[in-house]
């Protein structure tokens, strides 16, 4: 087959007829259920845990059952598997209660009494402890500090991934080996966390991904914690142990998008932006997790699609006793781009310019310096994308009226998303290895650790390999990941699967093509090599922050009811540059899903913490978009082949989300004639700014 041939998803039939098995559908003999005993306060010493009289069949697993280290190893090892003597957030795990009879487990669980000595909790960002601070500069901002200042302070709150399949793992200790099955993005993160926690030799640890019902970043680091806990439980009782959260637990206690505050000051001269000073703050919660990496993407995305000659960008991650935050599609960029795009909209208004025209003045171009003084080496067609956006939306003739007396507004966002890990992360930290195996029957097996979580990896990677070999799609075999069967090709994150892993598989396929006729098993191994145009200094954050950028140019149309101030988004127009679409249907799936999730972030998904506890705990109280909220989505793309992507493809998964909330917020500002500084744009927030 050829890359241009449209295909159907390879995993679709079993999902439609319900025969595919997610972790909760799997049968394990002698399965035990686990429930997590959690802290009810944001910070304190544990004075005592009073358990009811032990009933036969119930086992308590806690800090006393640690085998080697009470650490969940991610970038740091600061998070314990079970609370030791202190708790640091509401919901922190203290123990697992395990038993064969679920009702018995719950009955026992309900009688446990924990006593604490509360300590003062840090619930806001500010003068308290930080996990990391990062800074970079460009040009010389001090030369412009006497110019007119134009400032804004922008705020975002939590967003919950709300994958439809809740978090779930099963641990099974057999023959001195631990096996983990579960819903996950990063099997090797889990494996490494288990090696660290148990001190086992790596052959004694096997991680098997089960069909994953959505993740969006929420299953990047969090499953490592659950795997460590259930592994200890399974080792203790000698039977498989299953930990699957109920929906409320999952919403309140698992990692979310970081709340942020961003201050931007622009220095203006004769209607031109001469420089910007930007400060970004993120609330990590009590443990580092992935937050320093999220911060890096937040600050490295900070100038978006615009060339700003003089810059100072500072970022801080605060340590608090709020819920522990992590990865979510966009990974820091949605927060920054919300702030930046509102700021650009506000400057346009201040200068009396059309919001798209103002943006056009600053579009980055091929060959220019990036905000971190790398060089944009790939072709960039932002002006052409903006033209195309005007064309598909008929921008020049858009009407500001609606039939039913609603206020109508339009808002732009022109945004990048850097594909793959930040800086030289792919080469220095990830060092991906992929394999292709041709068996004696002529089937080609993809051996990578990147998972299908709904985004279409199974189909996209199989299509790349089938096209490179010019064989039918059904000759390519790619199964759920098993660390005993596949090399470590890194996490399923950072929109790297198609662009980085797809390219390595493409290279492997090109080599395999030469020997396809040989009638024996052949394995081709490919190692990641950094393209030579990438230069990066991690200490100073100077050089090429990303391998390449994908781009989106968006226009949102909203209507605001003048009485209730309810916002409805009626249309989203989007032009995308993802290199080439590996498959048009898959790309559209990402576009639609990203638009709707971004729309939720911008105008619906209100999640707040009070006293350290997340207040929204169900589908009823945390409103995500349903069918009736969906706008018309008008999308198109340009073809812009990227030399280091498979068939020219670049990253797509996160790009589709990051610009949507900013475009909608700008559209609401346009409709009500007031600036917006906070999302989601709920009626009560609009009331605040209009009164």
């Amino acid at each position: 087959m050829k890359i241009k041939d449209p295909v159907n998803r390879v995993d679709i039939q079993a999902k439609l007829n319900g025969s595919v098995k997610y972790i909760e559908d799997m049968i394990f003999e002698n399965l035990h259920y686990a429930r997590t005993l959690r802290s009810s306060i944001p910070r304190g010493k544990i004075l005592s845990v009073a358990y009811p009289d032990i009933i036969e069949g119930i086992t308590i697993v806690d800090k006393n059952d640690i085998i080697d280290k009470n650490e969940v190893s991610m970038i740091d090892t600061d998070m314990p598997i079970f609370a030791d003597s202190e708790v640091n957030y509401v919901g922190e795990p203290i123990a697992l209660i395990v038993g064969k009879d679920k009702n018995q487990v719950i009955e026992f669980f309900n009688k446990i009494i924990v006593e604490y000595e509360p300590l003062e909790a840090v619930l806001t960002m500010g003068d308290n402890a930080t996990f990391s601070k990062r800074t970079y500069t460009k040009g010389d901002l001090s030369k412009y500090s006497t110019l007119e200042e134009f400032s804004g302070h922008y705020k975002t709150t939590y967003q919950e991934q709300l994958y439809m399949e809740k978090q779930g793992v099963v641990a099974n200790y057999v023959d001195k080996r631990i096996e983990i099955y579960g819903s996950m993005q990063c099997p090797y993160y889990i494996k490494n966390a288990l090696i660290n926690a148990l001190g086992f030799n790596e052959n004694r640890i096997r991680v098997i991904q089960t069909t994953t019902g959505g993740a969006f970043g929420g299953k990047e680091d969090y499953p490592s914690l659950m795997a460590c806990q259930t592994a200890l439980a399974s080792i203790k009782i000698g039977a498989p142990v299953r930990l699957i959260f109920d929906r409320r637990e999952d919403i309140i206690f698992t990692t979310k998008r970081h709340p942020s505050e961003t201050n931007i000051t622009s220095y203006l001269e004769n209607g031109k932006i001469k420089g910007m000073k930007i400060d970004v703050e993120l609330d990590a919660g009590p443990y580092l997790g992935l937050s320093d990496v999220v911060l890096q993407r937040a600050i490295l995305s900070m100038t978006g699609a615009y060339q700003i000659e003089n810059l100072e960008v500072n970022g801080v991650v605060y340590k608090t006793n709020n819920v522990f935050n992590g990865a979510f599609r966009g990974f820091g960029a949605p927060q920054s781009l919300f702030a930046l795009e509102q700021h650009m909209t506000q400057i346009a208004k201040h200068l009396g310019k059309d919001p798209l025209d103002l943006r056009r003045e600053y579009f980055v171009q091929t060959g220019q310096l990036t905000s971190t003084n790398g060089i944009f080496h790939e072709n960039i067609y932002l002006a052409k994308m903006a033209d195309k956006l005007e064309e598909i939306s008929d921008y020049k003739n858009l009407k500001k009226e609606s039939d039913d007396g609603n206020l109508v507004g339009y808002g732009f966002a022109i945004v990048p998303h850097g594909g793959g890990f930040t800086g030289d992360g792919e080469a220095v930290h990830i060092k991906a290895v992929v394999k292709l195996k041709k068996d004696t029957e002529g089937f080609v097996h993809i051996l990578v650790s990147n998972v299908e979580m709904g985004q279409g990896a199974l189909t996209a990677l199989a299509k790349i390999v089938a096209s490179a070999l010019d064989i039918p799609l059904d000759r390519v075999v790619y199964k759920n990941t098993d660390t005993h069967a596949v090399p470590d090709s890194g996490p399923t994150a950072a929109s790297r699967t198609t662009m980085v892993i797809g390219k390595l598989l493409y290279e492997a396929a090109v080599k395999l093509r030469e020997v396809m006729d040989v009638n024996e098993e052949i394995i081709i191994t490919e190692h990641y090599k950094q393209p030579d145009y990438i230069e990066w200094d991690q200490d100073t954050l100077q050089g090429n922050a990303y391998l390449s950028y994908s781009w989106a140019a968006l226009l949102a149309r909203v209507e605001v009811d003048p009485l209730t101030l309810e916002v409805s988004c009626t249309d989203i127009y989007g032009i995308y540059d993802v290199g080439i679409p590996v498959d048009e249907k898959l790309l559209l799936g990402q576009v639609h899903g990203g638009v709707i999730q971004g729309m939720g972030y911008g105008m619906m998904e209100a999640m707040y913490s009070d006293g350290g506890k997340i207040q929204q705990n169900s589908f009823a109280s945390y409103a995500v978009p349903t069918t009736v909220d969906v706008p018309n989505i008008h999308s198109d793309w340009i073809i812009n082949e990227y030399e280091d992507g498979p068939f020219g493809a670049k990253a797509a998964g996160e790009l589709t989300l990051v610009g949507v909330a900013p475009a909608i917020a700008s559209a609401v500002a346009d409709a009500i004639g007031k600036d917006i500084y906070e999302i989601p744009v709920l009626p009560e927030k609009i009331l605040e700014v209009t009164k």
Partner: protein
Amino acid sequence: MRNITFTLNGEKVTVETTLSRRLLDVIRIDLGLTGTKEGCGEGECGACQVYLDGKIVNSCLVPMSNVIGREVQTIEGFAKTKAYEKIEKAYIEEGAVQCGFCTPGMVMATNALLKDNAHPNSKEIKESLAGNICRCTGYQTIFKAVKKIADEEEK
């Protein structure tokens, strides 16, 4: 505990359980039909939808006392019908599935919609699927799949 008899996908079954037990658990755990999913357990997401006497219900909200002597059809049973084949074909052609967790419920809801209204307009499609949450697809391809089936009926 008592014996409760009902019809499941066309066959009589008897399970020993309590009257207050959720139909969802009996289907999934006692009878091993795991195509019906639990997304929320609170009647808010539609992942657990099945037909009870031909009408669509959230099985996480149905106690077994309401099932006695009645007819239940799950995705496993529905997947053997002609109506399913049409829905499957349209969903595949439009690519209306991503992670798949909402999908069996969405398929059941699609059929319920089309049974009531063979030619729904966009608004009717949106309103009748509003009880089914999908976090992946942004719903666009699902709407298209529904339209496609309706259009094909017309021919």
